[in-house]
């Protein structure tokens, strides 16, 4: 396959970025999208051009490290019915001779560090604000000592599959991280272990979300459409329910 790439190049956080066009030949349809970028970088290195910086790690779709906007859709799902991460997208999804636009996540809370790499530590701070439970250390209790209803366990597991890649923020026209925040809220709110901090958690995580400069949710649904893990939009309603409930709970000392 021969393809034309238009890639966002930006030397550093303060530099002015722009789209650069590169021609890439001999791309195998079996390559993953990131292997195609590796090929591009090898070519650029040989030519003495600075390689394109992009985030990646496991390349198995489970770590949440990779992620770029491909032809306008986060992770490049496009019109495919199958949600995907960037690393699990393959070049057979594109036609020979295609032009592919590659841009970094765009959001106030995700400043560009270099080229396609953005700073997602805002997510870490949202998790630190309340995405944890308090348990005693020492001998673990019996695995099934605390029963969890099947429905609740399923919802918790579904929400817990969030890998924190940030595609929801990248796709949101408001630059909101509500799907990410609500996934953690729903995950912990469904389980008995998450109950002690349930009401303080939702308040502090939403406060941190807003402080990071993310926008507000207007229920458009772009986030859930690009989520590689299929986190459902109704987790945001779960967050809203918990937040409203929490407003009637004391903050304590």
């Amino acid at each position, binding site marked *: 396959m021969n393809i034309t790439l238009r890639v966002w190049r930006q030397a550093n956080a303060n530099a002015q970025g722009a*789209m650069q066009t590169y021609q890439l030949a001999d791309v195998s349809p079996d390559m993953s999208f990131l292997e195609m970028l590796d090929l591009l970088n090898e070519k650029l290195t040989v030519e003495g051009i600075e390689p394109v910086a992009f985030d990646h790690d496991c390349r198995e779709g489970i770590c949440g490290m990779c992620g770029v906007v491909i032809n306008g859709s986060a992770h490049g*799902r496009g019109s495919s019915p199958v949600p995907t991460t960037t690393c699990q997208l393959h070049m057979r999804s594109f036609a020979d001779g295609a032009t592919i*636009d590659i841009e970094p996540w765009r959001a106030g809370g995700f400043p560009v560090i270099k080229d396609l790499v953005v700073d997602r530590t805002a997510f870490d701070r949202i998790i630190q604000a309340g995405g944890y439970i308090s348990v005693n250390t020492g001998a673990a209790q019996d695995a099934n000592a605390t029963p969890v209803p099947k429905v609740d366990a399923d919802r918790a597991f579904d929400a817990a599959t969030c890998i924190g890649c940030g595609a929801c923020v990248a796709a949101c026209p408001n630059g909101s991280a509500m799907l990410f925040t609500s996934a953690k809220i729903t995950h912990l709110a469904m389980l008995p272990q998450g109950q002690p901090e349930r009401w303080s958690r939702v308040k502090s995580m939403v406060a941190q979300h*807003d402080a990071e400069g993310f926008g507000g949710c207007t229920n458009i649904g772009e986030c859930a459409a*690009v989520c590689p893990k299929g986190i459902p939009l109704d987790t945001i309603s779960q967050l809203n329910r918990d937040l409203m409930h929490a407003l009637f709970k004391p903050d304590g000392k």
Partner: protein
Amino acid sequence: MAITGLIMVGFLLMHMYGNLKVFLGAEAFDHYAHWLKGDILYPLIPSGWFIWIFRFVMLAAIVLHIYSAAVLTGRAHRARGTKYVTSKPLQQTYAARTMRWGGVILAGFLVFHLLQFTAQVIKTGWNSGAGPYEMFVVSFEQWWLVLAYALWMVTVCMHVRHGFWSAFATLGANTSATTRKWWNIIAWAVAVILYVGFMIAPVAVLIGGVR
């Protein structure tokens, strides 16, 4: 945003229902219009106060709705100041995408509507002292006013189409993919009912069914 929006959807449904009185003739319509400004809730509150309390509540809802929208828009612009070179929407509806500018446009026409029928500053074909029924009929015998209202109601009903479902989702009522589908069906139904209910009387006047 959700609560003030639902208050206004409730008002629209009542307003639409009230407008249908025009089919019962001049006397019924004028009587209804005068009752609205008359002794509702009397003697609990003094006669004629209800309309002013009602107007205050509606004004408060509108102001708070616009304030919330302005805050959300400001946050969205700060969070998405840099646009994508290429963007491919996967999920958003036209109604959802046009909530902000659509809201501004429909609010602008609302000012005209209030100047026309409430303050009666803009007189579209009637003379001072005309009754509500006369104002209604004289106005909508003019095709361009019917067309203007038809376009205005498109913006209003599109706003309601996304706003109605969105309000319930914000209030936590979106509990599964199935409920989401149903909220969207109900939102469509409310929008279509509002459009048909509001436009049927002006169109009837235009084609001579009501005179």
